[in-house]
């Protein structure tokens, strides 16, 4: 009897094993990709244009990055630059010639095939008029197209960051048809000319409300497996919609109720409540952003380096960061975060001194007699919050801060005039795969930091290509940064976004689809 029981249990066991082995793939099949549905995202900012080449704003690239593609892509899961519209590329031994082999069979949304002529016209427009084109312009010798699928860039001198710049989506050289690129020139593209090669094509833009994109049926994906924004891109959603939702509570309710799959712009103090909400995934966006003071080094009180050093000595970064970003802050002074290849401790002995007495003494030595220090303040998060804490610390240390609040447009307009301000507080993404392409390095950026020491070390940095030598140059740069104090970094903070849970949208946040600065609708699907 006992033997029979054992036999029965064994047979049952084998039966169950076979059943689960057979059923397994079927169960997994419910997670397998399927076409259909609308990807809906809520963004907290207005979308000013979709011309990604001309605008450096992140909010432009969120929808725009679905329409337009670049020669190479640097937002990848493995952190390496990967091909996108270029099949492969070679760099000459003297680092003066870059040759790109363009993918064949790629079609623009107007049906025309992508050729090297389109690449040339786009890259040419970018060098002349693109938001970030000015950084690389001095190094360009010429562009050429030896044949229909080959594109070449010749440089006057080696320029290390070029490849990273070519992979830049917001303000980088996205590829558009030659005719459109040449006609647009310095003007923004009009909506009827939003024609790219991406997996989604432009559908509709209702200003201040939403941008809607439709799947581009003529898209030919790459063969490599998905690797962040690079590799195989499949548009499973029929449409992708980017809704402008200004009210944070409306965005949170929207994601919680399933109206949106993703939303940006959540204040740090909401982190705990988001983590506790079972219907929402709180996303700490990697890598972190940085926040900082920009000084007017050209004119006025803060053109005095000693006064800038006095302010640096005064500030207590722990207080500033915790007050504004709470648990999402990281108090560290390296220009680039720890998670990037450009982290260095050079010059950090001057960071976070939190010594108001020393600051006062240094200011006195610098000849400061209590004159007004005009602080431009943006009325939005986190600029306003940061400015308040900074102003309080400076006032307590005896600095006479004149707090001037504007909307963002007002700040941008005023900061361009060197006689209107001494300092302003801002924040933004510091994470570029190459420090050489950071916008604030330009001597024409408001702040106008343009000393011979800075320019010499930067020249070194961008003209060498070996990583170790470049890191060494970057460390020297950071030393100068902390001595000349054109900018004071408070620390790093994680941007907080929110996403729908795995049971509402599949693959978002997976290893091949990490959420890295921007979210994108391809390679995602509904359950």
């Amino acid at each position, binding site marked *: 009897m006992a033997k029979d029981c054992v036999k029965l249990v064994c047979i049952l066991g084998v039966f169950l094993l076979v059943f689960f082995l057979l059923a397994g793939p079927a169960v997994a099949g419910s997670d397998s990709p399927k076409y259909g549905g609308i990807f809906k995202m809520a963004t907290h900012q*207005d979308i*000013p*244009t979709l011309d990604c080449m*001309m*605008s*450096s*704003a992140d909010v*432009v690239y969120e929808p725009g990055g679905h329409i337009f593609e670049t020669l190479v892509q640097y937002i990848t899961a493995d952190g390496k630059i990967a091909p996108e519209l270029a099949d492969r590329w070679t760099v000459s031994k003297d680092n003066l010639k870059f040759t790109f082999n363009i993918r064949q069979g790629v079609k623009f949304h107007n049906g025309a095939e992508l050729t090297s002529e389109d690449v040339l016209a786009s890259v040419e427009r970018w060098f002349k*008029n*693109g*938001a*970030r*084109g*000015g*950084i690389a312009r001095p190094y360009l010798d010429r562009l050429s197209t030896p044949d229909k699928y080959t594109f070449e860039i010749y440089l006057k001198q080696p320029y290390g960051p070029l490849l990273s710049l070519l992979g830049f989506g*917001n*303000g980088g050289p996205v590829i558009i048809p030659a005719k459109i690129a040449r006609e647009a020139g*310095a*003007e*923004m593209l*009009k*909506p009827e000319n939003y024609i790219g090669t991406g997996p989604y094509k432009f559908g509709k*833009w*209702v*200003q*201040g*409300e939403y941008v809607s994109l439709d799947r581009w049926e003529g898209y030919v994906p790459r063969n490599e497996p998905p690797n962040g924004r690079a590799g195989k891109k499949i548009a499973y959603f029929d449409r992708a919609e980017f*809704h402008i*939702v*200004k*009210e944070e*509570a*409306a965005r949170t*309710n*929207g994601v*919680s*109720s399933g*109206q949106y799959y993703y939303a940006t712009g959540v204040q740090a103090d909401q982190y705990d409540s988001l983590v506790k909400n079972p219907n929402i995934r709180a996303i700490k966006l990697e890598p972190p952003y940085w926040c900082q003071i920009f000084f007017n080094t050209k004119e006025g009180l803060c053109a005095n380096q000693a006064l800038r050093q006095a302010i640096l000595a005064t500030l207590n970064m722990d207080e500033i960061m915790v007050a504004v970003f709470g648990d999402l802050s990281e108090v560290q002074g390296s220009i680039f975060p720890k998670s990037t290849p450009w982290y260095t401790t050079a010059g950090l002995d001057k960071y976070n001194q939190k010594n108001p007495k020393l600051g006062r003494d240094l200011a006195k030595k610098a000849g400061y007699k209590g004159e007004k220090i005009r602080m431009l303040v943006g009325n939005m998060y986190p600029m306003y919050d940061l400015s308040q804490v900074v102003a309080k610390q400076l006032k307590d240390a005896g600095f006479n801060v004149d707090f001037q609040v*504007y*909307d*963002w*447009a*007002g700040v*941008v*307009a*005023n900061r*361009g005039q060197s006689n209107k301000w001494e300092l302003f507080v*801002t924040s*933004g993404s510091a994470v570029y795969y190459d420090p050489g392409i950071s*916008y*604030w390095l*330009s001597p*024409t*950026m408001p702040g106008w930091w343009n000393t011979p020491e800075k320019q010499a070390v930067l020249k070194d940095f961008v003209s060498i290509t070996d990583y170790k030598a470049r890191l060494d140059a970057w460390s020297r740069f950071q030393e100068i940064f902390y001595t000349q104090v054109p900018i004071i970094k408070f620390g790093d903070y994680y941007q907080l976004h929110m996403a729908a849970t795995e049971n509402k949208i599949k693959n978002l946040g997976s290893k091949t689809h990490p959420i890295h600065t921007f979210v994108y609708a391809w390679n995602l699907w509904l359950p």
Partner: protein
Amino acid sequence: MEAFENLSRGFHRKQEPFCGELRAPTGQKENPNKQRGFNQKMTDYIVRRFLLMIPIMLMVGIICFLLIHFIPGNPAELMLGAEADSAVIAALTKKMGYDQPLYMQFLKWLQMVIRFDFGVSIYSHQPVISLIAHRAEASILIACGATILFSFFGILVGIISAIKRNSWLDQVSMTLSLTLASAPSFWIGLNLMLIFAATLRWLPGSGYPGVIETGNISNLRYLILPCLTIAIPSTGLIARLTRSFFIDILSMEYITTARAKGLKESVVLIKHALRNALIPVVAVIGSYFAEIVSLSVVIETVFNVPGVGRLVVESILQRDYPTLQALLMFIAGLYVIVNFLCDIIYAVLDPRIQYD
């Protein structure tokens, strides 16, 4: 509110209450010549008011143009983003024509406006008129819905309170009215959203896909919560105003005369008292309507409804000059028209009001 009340009371004091029935006994017809004269005067008045709108709108346009351009800001910088190259910003500013002297920009604008061309948005390149028309749909629907709700319930509660003056019903309704009128609208909105959208899920809590664009009338459900959010505090306010005016009227001698004459109480209240009490209330309702259409920024933001108010704020923040200019003129025009309509309604409510 106090200002409205004083204004309305002042207006009311200038007029003797209309008690047509007392002066014109039943069965006696009005002189047809007198009636024709009134109609002629009214037509003249309407034509004159329409013609007056032209210089008013022109002045509004000029003042708006100057104010808009005195705010610091350059749309090219906003379009290109904070990290854009300064040479690129300068090139785009030039292309857009914003590097030209202000008087040149003004003349260009004037030339266009004379041709009724308000230009295109500098962002989406959509014609400004279609942009405003699209946004006006939600705003006008919300304003109509809310105005019907708060006018009906506000006047009803106000009359009942006035008739039942100092009763428990009056005290309860007036306390409730004061509470509602004092509650911030965004707080009411967020609570309604929490209850009806997030918890009960009876109504959508955010957005408005449009009825004209989609052809789907059921999209009106998106506007129910915004309408209620505006109507709730306004009902309280209108109820208090109506009660106050109604009590004033009820204490007047001609009402006592009407009652002494043996008229039914309902006739006294509706025919004699209500018409006079409503004149100042109409002025307030009219102003409210224009305000809801043009300036419901908070409600539109809370419910993410694409309305005129939000477009105003967005255009200011983005320095979208053509859109902002046209919007301000649209709002000014709306106020002019609403005031004009209110004047006509006064005449209907009180035929003795004459516009010379």
